[in-house]
């Protein structure tokens, strides 16, 4: 039981952060506005959660311009993918054990 709980990642212990990771697991890149639509959250809320995931180096950010408009794209890092899979596996084990 202790081993399983060790794999439950505190960083993912929030709806929005879990949502960002879930969406990035199945898409190569997603831009800010699409992510906002998918999760149904406000700009500020999304930005703060993105920042915390970026700090852990679970996601990477690529800034570019489409015409004159700035466009920021996010993608999941190798580490992020690994940690997310660990987290999901731990969740499943907890479900099976209970």
């Amino acid at each position, binding site marked *: 039981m202790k081993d399983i709980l060790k794999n439950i990642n505190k960083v993912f212990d929030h709806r929005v952060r879990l*949502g960002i990771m879930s969406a990035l697991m*199945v898409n190569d890149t997603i831009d800010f506005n699409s992510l906002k639509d998918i*999760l149904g959250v406000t700009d500020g809320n999304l930005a703060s959660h993105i920042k915390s995931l970026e700090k852990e180096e679970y996601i990477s950010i690529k800034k570019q311009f489409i015409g004159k408009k700035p466009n920021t794209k996010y993608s999941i890092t190798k580490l992020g993918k690994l940690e997310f899979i660990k987290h999901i596996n731990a969740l499943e084990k907890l*479900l099976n054990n209970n």
Partner: protein
Amino acid sequence: MNKEDYLKEIAEIKTIMNRSSRFISLSGLSGILAGIYAIIGAITAQLILTNYKNSSSSYSLLPISYLEYTLIVIALLVLLLSILSAYILSAKKAKKSGEKLWDATSKRLILNFSIPLFTGGAFCIVLYQNNLIGLIAPCTLIFYGLACLNASKYTLGDIRYLGLATIIIGLVSTQFIGYGLYFWAFGFGVMHIVYGAVLYNKYDKNIH
């Protein structure tokens, strides 16, 4: 956290993965309508063809190219009506469930559906150029099936089986040249109605 929280969390991960990578507003009802248009189109084409063969009919006085144009117009009309219905009904479904019709998922779906479809269309023109008319119906079925198969990764996964069924019908029909219209009516007509009904029952009924 207790068991229910974990279950909820996993369910939410699944929903977001689906919603962010697949276009889920595809309307089942539009599939049924597309099938009906195809069958009406096939019957009309059959009537025109039998009329043409009976020399007593006025059609026989017309050059063959006129007949070909009529059949092409019928096929294009079926295609146009099907696309229009799919667009209108999917837009309605998206609005009802609070999704966007035109976003990254629908763009990706259209692109990945179009590539095999246009390849098939070009190949059918080549068949026509080489006077291999009998292979055109099987060719449209096979490439349409491949388009569905390819698109299934970007929308409701059930489309995969519609694709496989259409490919098989197309391959079988290559062995029955001259009966293309019947296979066409079965592949595009009956299969669309069946799969449209399956999708409608599975996804659309619960949206109010």
